[in-house]
């Protein structure tokens, strides 16, 4: 099947006075119709940046400096602004990490939904209003018919988040880029939203890029998962393998840091140290200063994604030609 979204060797740069920062470096992945790709990784790794590049909303001076983005086989990374604006909303629905930037404080949530639908779908005012109420119900806003005329500030954080989700979905796009869509939501509403997203993927063949820190949401929703670190993909593969049996040392550390639900621990597992700043990414493997398995080659040569048997990981331990091979503990999570 031809993928709906195809990202090839994407590179995003930020020119600054102190030199050019590379925020994304050689990011490639594809999403098929009806598929949900989960994207996880270190805070600041470039997940939102990847989403922003796809929907054509990179914040200047950020710019795509290399690679291609294809939607249904057509390049969209080099389209003029006006054309991209039409694609956004109609063909790509975006759910941003920050609900306040998407919602206009001066208009009621109902008006914003109605406007979006009328821009992209052929609907009368009355029909659009009915649908707006329907969407609010679908994302679990209580007394939707009463609250459709509320302004964003009259809603709680989680309610605003759900309005943003409704806005992204209401024009029935083919691709949904969802950046932390459920972080502000309680587990019950979260379950409802996830069921809604999965149903859209299954029934309408919507492709979805789902960025989240919530591994529970990933485990339930994603088909495949990409793990990002310092502007690169560290590991990518089927959800079960990446979450339960990760092969890249960063992914292993990440999954080990998930707080347990069934007991209290005094000190939570964490990966010591911090991700390098964009201006100081070390040569070779970007994870090498924090990696417990680091060896000479890691400090010189940058690893490409290599087959590990279950996933693909950017780690020299999986190159048969390396002087050091993955220890048993890494091969079987």
């Amino acid at each position: 099947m031809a993928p709906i979204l195809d990202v090839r060797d994407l590179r995003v740069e930020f020119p600054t006075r102190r030199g050019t920062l590379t925020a994304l470096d050689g990011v490639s992945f594809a999403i098929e119709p009806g598929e949900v790709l989960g994207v996880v990784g270190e805070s600041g790794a470039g997940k939102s940046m990847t989403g922003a590049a796809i929907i054509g909303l990179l914040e200047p001076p950020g710019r795509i400096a290399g690679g291609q983005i294809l939607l249904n086989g057509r390049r969209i990374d080099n389209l003029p602004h006006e054309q991209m604006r039409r694609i956004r909303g109609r063909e790509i629905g975006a759910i941003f990490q920050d609900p306040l930037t998407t919602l206009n404080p001066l208009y009621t949530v109902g008006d914003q939904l109605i406007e979006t639908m009328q821009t992209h779908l052929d609907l009368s005012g009355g029909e659009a209003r009915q649908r707006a109420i329907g969407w609010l119900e679908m994302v679990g806003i209580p007394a939707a018919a009463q609250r459709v005329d509320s302004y964003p500030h009259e809603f709680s954080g989680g309610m605003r988040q759900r309005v943003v989700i409704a806005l992204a979905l209401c024009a029935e796009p083919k691709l949904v880029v969802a950046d932390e869509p459920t972080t502000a939501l309680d587990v019950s509403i979260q379950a409802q939203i996830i069921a809604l997203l999965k149903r859209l993927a299954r029934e309408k063949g919507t492709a979805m890029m789902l960025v989240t820190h919530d591994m529970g949401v990933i485990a339930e929703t994603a088909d495949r998962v990409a793990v990002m670190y310092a502007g690169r993909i560290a590991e990518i593969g089927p959800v079960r393998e990446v979450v339960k049996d990760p092969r890249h040392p960063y992914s292993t550390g990440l999954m080990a840091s998930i707080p347990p639900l069934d007991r209290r621990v005094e000190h939570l597992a964490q990966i010591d140290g911090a991700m390098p700043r964009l201006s100081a990414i070390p040569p070779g493997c970007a994870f090498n200063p924090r990696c417990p398995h680091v060896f000479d080659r890691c400090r010189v040569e940058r690893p490409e994604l290599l087959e590990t048997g279950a996933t693909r990981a950017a780690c020299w331990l999986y190159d048969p030609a390396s002087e050091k091979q993955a220890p048993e503990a890494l091969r079987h999570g």
Partner: protein
Amino acid sequence: MADDIAMRASGAPPPHASDASPPRASGASPPRASGATPMLAAEELAKYFDVSRPLLQRLLAREGRRILRAVDGVSFEIPKGTTLSLVGESGCGKSTVARLVVGLYQPTRGRVLFDGQDLEKARAASEQRRRMQMIFQDPYASLNPRWRVRDIVAEPIRAFGLTRDNAAQRERVAQLLAQVGLSPLDGEKYPHEFSGGQRQRISIARALSSNPEFLVCDEPTSALDVSVQAQILNLMKDLQRRLGLTYLFISHNLAVVRQISDRIGVMYLGRLVELAPAETLFNAPRHPYTRALMEAIPDLDMTGRQRVPVGGEVPSPISPPSGCPFHPRCPLANHRCKAERPALIPARGTPETVVACHAVEEGRDGAAFTPMDQRPPGPRIGTTATAL
């Protein structure tokens, strides 16, 4: 910015070394700690919002005022050196409670005592304001976009006159940024140059910079990956152990709540429905809503178990149901529940828990009350799957 609680103090007194707070109480403390003044006490707190439509529209539609009861009579105490967490459905009033306890909202009813002193009086003194800080749910809205990060973090230090020595200030800011996993060099940048999680860490660093003793944390780690989240939670626990900090913590992530809390309050529609020591709440949740909430936790083990959302309609805080507000969704509801609002009283069987439920009081939650670890897998009583 209106919601900036680190308001400027003119001629603030020199810093008080406040590191000599009492040691952390071991384990969970009872709701009424013996004698010692709690860090914070909320007494019958309520906050109503007027969400009426404009007058003309109201007249045309012949409707009255609409009052939304965001918080409706909430009482609790937080002993010094301990953590109370609030959990509950989105929109149940957690952030409103947070804003009430730091004085950003005037209560419609009830009052807040900060270290035994009426909050309004306490906030008149800058030294008292210094002792309380808040990390906001929305890390975007709470950072001034035109300020460099180092100035944002240093602002409380300056406002409260903690040190006037520039080198010492720089040093402290660098240390705070490093503590939250950022580089001291990041201080030169502006908020928009950071990712969501990095901004959240900036607001944590800022909240810590005035050496507060009481910290209100509204979803402080929601934008962080699990490894950075673990670093922040470890930092918070460490500060509590070393300096005796007191936390009011709000999160939807129940695994995180379990790691950080001494006691947990479960809110529903503006009220506390259960308040218990953390481990008791997880091992023996009593209120039907608490139990339903536990069922809805996502399943990391990919057993294929279907998550069970809390069944039924989420009620509206504008016209809350009669009697027990959970009754339209509760499998144990009977006619008493529809008529009479249950009081928050010690629970049968787990008296360290206070719970507002007739069924628990009457002892007819029996079959449903099985500790988590003894329960069979699969859908259980207390919930019905919502058809989606």
